[in-house]
């Protein structure tokens, strides 16, 4: 042991600390804090030369740690508990380090802990950081076997090992057969803002305050015009006077007629813990095991707890093909009482216009022409919420307008429902996808017209037309824009830069997600197929895998040995060549004596092994000429080197047995 084992403890602490960092997001603070505190004390003790810890202290700490973890996690026996306990174990093991074996065991624990982060996160940040932890851990392992020295060399060697391991890792990753259908693996449940199944006043104005990305869209062909970017998610059909609910009934779908071209796209949904998925109005077909319901929404069987990717085809130009059954009762439902003024207004419109579509137009005109204001901070509405909004306050956000408009339409005898989702999208300049953020959340209305069936009519557009073309921040009054972007005004250019950085990071993370995390069996098959491997079955892929690894290995070996020595000064090179020559002779049993001159050596060899004397003499003469005559230059050096390289003496047949051993 070139260092004593205890001297490695600070290095071990460094390795563990670096591996701890990615865990901080989920590890209970007392576990992390306890570990760090223990390490600090250990470090002080080791530095001051005292022994790491008494056995009793160790046992006490172990017990305390285990109890703390069990109590803290409520005794649940799951991954979190297991990994937390592993941290305790690693810390305790550190205190017990006495031999080489202990150090190696601690390092293997560090490796395990470093990798265990995959259970808890799958972000790009972790993807970048965990290899750093592995690098440090490997460097400590290298340091165990090095001459005592600093940190530079072990870190360099470790980096070289990791970098050279990357091609092998990539090949293994691509070719190792994926069995499961799951894409993303288990990650921790993250709370993401989003819709719930109740829509009430203030729902959307709260969602909108987050800049988080709700989902990302990749269009296969052209992107539809901005006024078509309605993303449909939920429909609400039951109104109780203040909020809208989903009754669960949907009625039957109606046949549709489409114009224009289909839009095909892929959405990657961020986890929101619910089952609904979003699609461009109007989704026609969803690939995979998703079906489009009769209200043209998409649902997943299980809740979206991790990123979920799905492909949809939509049509933006649609109308119904003809009359069909409609669940009228549901879509005309209104509470028995409440909002008398609104009902009267609706009845008025009914009388004025004959046709349903005219009623709708009257309604929209009402919103357009009566000084309604689009705002995130409307005054509170009274008991008759609809009446308050329409006649008193005349301020609200999209959910208010959608709600009141739907009410009015129902009161006028036109079936209507509220649709919630998103409106608009933001392109990412660094990649070819669009981001739909929570701040794009929106609610609008669909009314049933005999000619065109369910038709979208968005009252918000009547109130604030700029919403659709210029986005939310432009549509809102100036004083409210900072609600959406709190830091913008204050930081100016820096926040611009920050935005760009965030977009860039988002693009990078998206790439990471798609190429690494979402590498599913289907993807693997298609990728291998594109490379020319039309293979089925896991066995075939395994064979391929071994083949690929073998090739990689061979390449690496060739790389290692194909490289020759570096160029050096002539005399030094000759000396080194001579040493190599001596080494070869040593391997054959002819060891040069320490101060034996080359010529004497040659004579000695000549007498011992006449069969070698010719070549040996030639080489030595050349060497002496180069070294002591100090002439000859590159050609002679090359000659010397090549002769030595070709010189491979065989050891003589042993005539004496080793007589140092008692037979």
């Amino acid at each position, binding site marked *: 042991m070139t260092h004593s084992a205890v001297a490695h403890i600070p290095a071990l602490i460094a390795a563990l600390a670096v591996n701890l960092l990615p865990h901080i997001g989920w590890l209970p603070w007392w576990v992390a804090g306890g570990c760090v505190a223990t390490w600090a004390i250990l470090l002080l003790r080791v530095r001051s030369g005292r022994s790491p810890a008494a056995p009793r202290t160790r046992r006490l700490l172990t017990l305390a740690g285990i109890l703390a973890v069990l109590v803290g996690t409520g005794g649940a026996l799951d991954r979190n508990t297991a990994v937390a306990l592993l941290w305790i174990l690693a810390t305790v093991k550190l205190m017990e380090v006495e031999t080489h074996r202990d150090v190696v065991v601690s390092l293997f624990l560090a490796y395990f802990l470093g990798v265990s982060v995959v259970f808890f996160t799958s972000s790009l940040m972790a993807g970048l950081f965990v290899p750093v932890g592995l690098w440090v851990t490997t460097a400590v392992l290298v340091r165990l*076997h090095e001459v005592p020295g600093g940190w530079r060399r072990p870190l360099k060697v470790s980096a070289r090992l990791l970098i050279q391991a990357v091609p092998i890792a990539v090949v293994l990753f691509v070719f190792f057969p994926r069995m499961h259908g799951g894409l993303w693996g288990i990650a921790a449940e993250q709370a993401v803002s989003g819709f719930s199944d109740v829509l009430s006043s203030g729902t959307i104005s709260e969602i909108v305050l987050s800049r988080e990305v709700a989902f990302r869209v990749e269009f296969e062909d052209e992107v539809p015009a901005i006024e078509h970017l309605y993303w449909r998610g939920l429909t609400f059909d039951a109104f109780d006077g203040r909020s809208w609910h989903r009754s669960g009934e949907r009625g039957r779908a109606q046949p549709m007629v489409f114009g224009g071209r289909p839009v095909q796209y892929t959405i990657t949904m961020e986890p929101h813990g619910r089952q609904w998925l979003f699609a461009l109005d109007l989704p026609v077909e969803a690939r995979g095991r998703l079906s489009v319901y009769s209200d043209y929404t998409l649902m997943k069987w299980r809740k979206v707890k991790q990123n979920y990717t799905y492909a949809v085809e939509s049509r933006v130009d649609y109308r119904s093909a003809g009359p069909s059954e409609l669940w009228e009762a549901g879509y005309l439902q209104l509470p028995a009482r409440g909002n008398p003024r609104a009902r009267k207004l609706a009845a008025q419109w009914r009388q004025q216009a004959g046709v349903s579509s005219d009623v709708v137009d009257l309604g929209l005109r009402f919103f357009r022409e009566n000084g309604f204001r689009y705002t995130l901070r409307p005054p509170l509405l009274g008991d008759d919420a609809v009446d308050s909004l329409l006649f008193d306050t005349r301020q609200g956000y999209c959910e208010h307008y959608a709600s009141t408009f739907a009410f009015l339409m129902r009161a006028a005898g036109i079936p209507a429902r509220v649709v919630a989702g998103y409106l608009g999208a933001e392109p990412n300049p660094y990649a070819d996808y669009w981001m739909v953020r929570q701040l794009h959340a929106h609610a609008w209305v669909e009314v049933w017209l005999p000619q065109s069936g369910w038709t979208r009519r968005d009252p918000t557009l009547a109130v604030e037309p700029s919403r659709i073309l210029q986005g939310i921040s432009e549509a809102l009054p100036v004083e409210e824009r900072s609600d959406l972007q709190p830091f913008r005004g204050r930081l100016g250019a820096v926040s611009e830069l920050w935005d760009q950085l965030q977009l860039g990071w988002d693009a990078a993370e998206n790439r990471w997600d798609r190429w690494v995390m979402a590498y599913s069996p289907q993807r693997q098959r298609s990728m291998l197929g594109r490379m020319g491997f039309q293979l089925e079955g896991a066995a075939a892929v395994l064979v391929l895998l071994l083949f690929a690894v073998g090739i990689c290995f061979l390449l690496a070996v060739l790389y290692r040995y194909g490289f020759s020595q570096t160029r050096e000064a002539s005399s030094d090179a000759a000396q080194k060549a001579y040493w190599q020559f001596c080494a070869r002779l040593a391997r*054959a049993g002819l060891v040069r004596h320490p101060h034996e001159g080359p010529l004497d050596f040659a004579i000695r060899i000549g007498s011992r092994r006449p069969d070698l004397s010719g070549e040996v003499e030639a080489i030595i003469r050349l060497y002496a000429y180069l070294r002591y005559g100090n002439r000859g230059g590159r050609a002679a050096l090359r000659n010397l080197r090549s002769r030595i390289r070709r010189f491979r003496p065989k050891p003589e047949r042993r005539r004496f047995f080793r007589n140092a051993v008692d037979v």
Partner: protein
Amino acid sequence: MPTRYGWAYLVMLTAMLVGSINYGNNFGFLLTFLLGGVGLVSTLHTWRNLSGVMLVSGKALPVFAGEPAVFEIVVRDCRAGGQTVEIGLEGAGAEFRKVDLHADQNRRVRLKMAARQRGRMITGPCVATTVHPLGLFRRRRCLAEHLECLVYPAPQRSEPTAFAANGGGAGSEGADENRSGSEDFQGLNAYRPGDPLQRISWKASSRGQGLYTKDFTGARGEIRILAWDAVAETDIERKLSILCGQVLDADRNRDAYGLELPGRVIAPGGGEAHRHRCLTALALFPGIESS
């Protein structure tokens, strides 16, 4: 080739792999494969590390049978250096020493091996092993096919009266200016520890007068011929041992001495080289292990 830590590493990787498969976690796959790649690559590094280690020169000073032979070798790492290797001789009683090899530095290593019999001792291969960088694999490389050491017979002290021939023995050839024909007895001095035993006046001591050393004039002392025949023993090895003892005594005494062996005669002389010559002749005397 894998060390036990290598196997443990493999077990750890397998556990990670199984976990990744079980949870279908691609990130886990990636990290597991990265570590697996590191393990594979470290094999190559371990292999390559020893390729540059070479034995530049080596020598062993002659020892007497029964003493440990000390091989001093000079080792060098002609590659990047900075690793720790273990160097040793293979064979029973071999010890391996950990050696730190810095770059471009000749490093002297002492290896010991017990020398049991006289003669030309030939050891097993001198090897270097390394587990650098990660300790997962061990490579063994032969540095020298064997090392040699000359082993003199173990010296055996005999009675002072055993050597008979004194000055003018038959066949002593080669006049030597150190030869003084007859000593001039000068007198007795009190015995001092360290005085050669053969100069002690036994007569005086047998008379109960104590121990006295005879003092002679004359430059270096006597010329002695140590003859094979003069040793009263039948066993070859014992004879050799006795002769060896005699040589050592004579040498310590600073006497001139010559050696008479069947088939080899060494003229009287003195000094290091002469002693070595005589002892070598005794060591290499054909005996049991002749071919």
